[in-house]
């Protein structure tokens, strides 16, 4: 049982377990951190599990103008999230379904989830949802080149286009190319905050629809749909978080060391988000594209640095 690598079945089960059970817990940590910083006791860590369970049992209230697109939105969120989690290497050295070129698959799955959520929000015919959809889609579209240039840098450094081996190469030779990867990390953290509509870009706890971005898109969802939407959002948080965590974690290619390190990284990330949200306020909308351009530039320079120095 102490072999260095998990067998495939164990790896698959581990990934499924993490993908299904860990994400709501991250929301719990963030909420708890924000409450503690504000001096409140805050909701219990497992509060979002309870929310999702309750919502799954409720009925769905649909508006007359909606069509199948409204139902497909949240489902696409969940499906793409799970798809990405199958492809991204979490604890171990590689992912259960990794294949060469799965970086591209990840990017386009994100695109698919964005496409379906926009359709879902436009379907209700409510102008707020259109507003939210337009903003969310535009910003994450602007963020995508940054994400991809980062992936290009990793692929260039490792020589593999599959995420598993790429992150393994990055982790195992942890020390020697830290400069470029810090730039990529900076770029990716901005992308992470945009994709999950965290505080500098959107206020998840806000209640003024005109200011919302992500929350307003879930306005009309009820019952299981809302459960899927919340779970999908948290899954997306986990998945993009894994990208951030894996780029900084060294890999010892021993499973009982790597997986705890990975969980610790995730917890740390959630803590960091909580702190960020309780300290910063939401940024003005017109300055968001400038920050995104900064993210793209960071990743580009990371890539160039890697490319110019002899391997």
């Amino acid at each position, binding site marked *: 049982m102490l072999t260095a690598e998990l067998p495939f079945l164990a790896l698959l089960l581990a990934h499924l377990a993490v993908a299904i059970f860990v994400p709501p817990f991250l929301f719990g940590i963030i909420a708890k951190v924000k409450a503690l910083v504000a001096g409140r006791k805050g909701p219990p860590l497992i509060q979002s599990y309870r929310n999702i369970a309750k919502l799954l049992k409720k009925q769905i209230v649909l508006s007359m103008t909606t069509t199948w*697109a409204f139902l497909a939105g949240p489902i696409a969120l*969940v499906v793409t999230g799970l798809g990405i989690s199958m492809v991204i290497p979490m604890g171990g050295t590689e992912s259960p*379904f990794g294949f060469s070129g799965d970086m591209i698959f990840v990017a386009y799955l994100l695109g*698919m989830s964005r496409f379906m959520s926009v*359709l879902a929000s436009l379907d209700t*015919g409510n102008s707020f949802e259109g*507003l939210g959809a337009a903003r969310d889609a535009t910003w994450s579209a602007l963020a995508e080149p940054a994400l991809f240039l980062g992936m290009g840098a990793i692929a260039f450094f490792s020589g593999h286009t599959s995420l598993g081996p790429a992150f393994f190469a990055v982790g195992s030779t942890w020390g020697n190319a830290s400069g470029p990867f810090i730039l990529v990390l900076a770029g990716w953290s901005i992308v992470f905050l945009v994709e999950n509509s965290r505080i500098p870009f959107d206020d998840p706890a806000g209640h003024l629809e005109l200011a919302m971005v992500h929350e307003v898109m879930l306005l009309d969802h009820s019952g299981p749909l809302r459960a899927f939407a919340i779970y999908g959002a948290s899954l997306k948080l986990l998945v993009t978080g894994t990208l951030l965590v894996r780029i900084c974690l060294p890999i010892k290619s021993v499973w009982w060391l790597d997986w705890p390190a990975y969980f610790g990284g995730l917890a740390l990330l959630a803590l960091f988000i909580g702190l960020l949200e309780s300290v910063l306020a939401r940024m003005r909308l017109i300055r968001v594209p400038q920050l995104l351009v900064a993210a793209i530039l960071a990743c580009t320079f990371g890539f160039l640095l890697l*490319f110019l120095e002899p391997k």
Partner: protein
Amino acid sequence: MYFLAPACFLFALVLVVVSGVIRQFRPSAILLISGCGIIFGCSVSAMLENTWFVNLPYFLPEGSFALQMDAIAAWFLLPMSLLPPILMVYGEGHWGKTNPLLAQRYRLLLGFATASLLIIPVAAHAIFFVLAWELVAIFGFLLIIAGDTSDKARHAGWIYLASSHASVMCLIAAFCLMATANGGGFFATLPVGWAHTGAGKACFLLFTIGFAIKSGISPFHFWLPEAHGIAPCQVAAFSSGLVVKIGLFGFFRLLMWVPDPPLWWAGCILLLGVLSALLGAINSVVQKDYTRFLAFSTVENMGVVAIALSIAFAGKSLNQPVLMALGIAGGLVHVLNHCIIKPLLFLTAGSILRITGSRNLELLGGLAKQQPRLAFSFFLGAVCICGLPPLFGFVGKWIILLGAFEGFTNSGWIWSAIAMSAVIFAGSLSVIAFARTFGIAFLGESRYFRPKKTSIPTLMKRPMLILVLFAVAISILPMILPPTLQPVLNLYDQTNTTMNPFPFFLNIVPIGQLWFLTCLLVFLGAFLWWRVKKTVIRHQPTWDCGYAKNSPRIQYTASSFAQILRDLFSVVLLHKKAPPNTKGVFPAPSQFSTESHDMMLHNGLNPAFRGSAGLLARLRIAQGGLLPIYLLYIVITLLALLAWTLA
């Protein structure tokens, strides 16, 4: 046996032409379907190594009537022989009852245009190639203005015709230069090193301009939105789906002719590709007219294929067979994807136009309720053309991006990083554009039109159904792509025989694993869909935050959806806002409207032409009407010539 394949190819061409001439619809449809079927058969057999070359020298006054069928020609002939019958049936459905004369003229022109279009991939002599090329341009023009004789339509058609003719002139010059290299008009691989000479450079530039104009790659894309935004949608489907592809086919042929292309060629094509991908994508997000939107999306897709071509050219010049193979494979799959899906989108747009009668996106809405099948086909087309995973559009973009990655990881071609980010950024912009168009047109409530139940004739529904079936079939079985691509790759890489047929696709482009994962996700989605459907659903009007008098026009509109991007890219987009004049204490009721034009045409070409026309007008006093002045010209010419010869 040797002479059978070309003979039936020519027979099929004759069938296609005759099908246009016959008056009634039914026999002409049968003839066209059989003709295209034969050609489809020929190209499939050519895929299985049954390539042939035939030369009938005595036919043309100069040059010769030479045909050559090889794998690359077969690949382009596949979609080109499938679509015309579909478009003809759609045209019949559209005009059959209301305007039979127009339907009959449309069939005639479509027959001729298809015949000349099918000649180009197999033409093996320069004159014959150019002849077919120009014929397609002329018939394309007549098709564009077939629908409506207004000045606007004719102006758009004129821009198309003039730029196609300019591209023919570029091609003639290029073929003449090429003839100086390999003596005579036959297409043959050029001598090594010729590409680096002056004539080689000029030849490449002329070829690039000629092919770029025809395939709508910017900065020569200005005619495409004008022509396809005005033409009847089945004509736009024909020219966006097929005619634009022969420009790309030209690039593929150029790649085959030049044994050692210099690296700056790849850079040049990459620049064009990136420019048109980004310009196309940005412009398509802000368009209010959904046919112009589809036209700009064509420009964007042509840009993506041009990027794939640049990767292929880089592969050939750095003699990296894998890079070249990825470039070619990605380009070809994307071409096939665009050949099938863009006509589907245009036909759907045509049906919307028939129902609502307006091309303006702002006035539509809620069509999914009235036409669920139409909505589903547009949705399917949108997902496929943006390259989103479940459908086979993703395979094309995936191979291109793999090529881009391969470019800068193993081949050290830094510019392929720009190729990668351009493809990705254009892809994400087109995701927004299609989400916006589908969302505004089909979802929500109908903004202006009272939703009336007008049905689309079956003759229009069948073609769309067939195209949807094509897309779904290929998406379900993407594994059929590698075997069809393999002969083309072998054609391009005779030197490196090490690349045996299948491993290339298994280890570098693992379609099998991708397909398996996608199936898993689809089943998961189906399960969740079943789970949601199982729960009890109650229906109520949309929650309106307590606002009593809620009219559908309060919904988010197309231009407001694109407002962030429009302001961000205002430097590239030519956007004129007519702000409402709210001056005075009680401002009169006014309207806010925005108008978006194509930057290249509106700021670039039109002023240039007006300016030069004004300049030339000053020279017209030379014909001032006075006889002595004319006689003075004769004396001056005489003295000048005498001075030149005797002095």
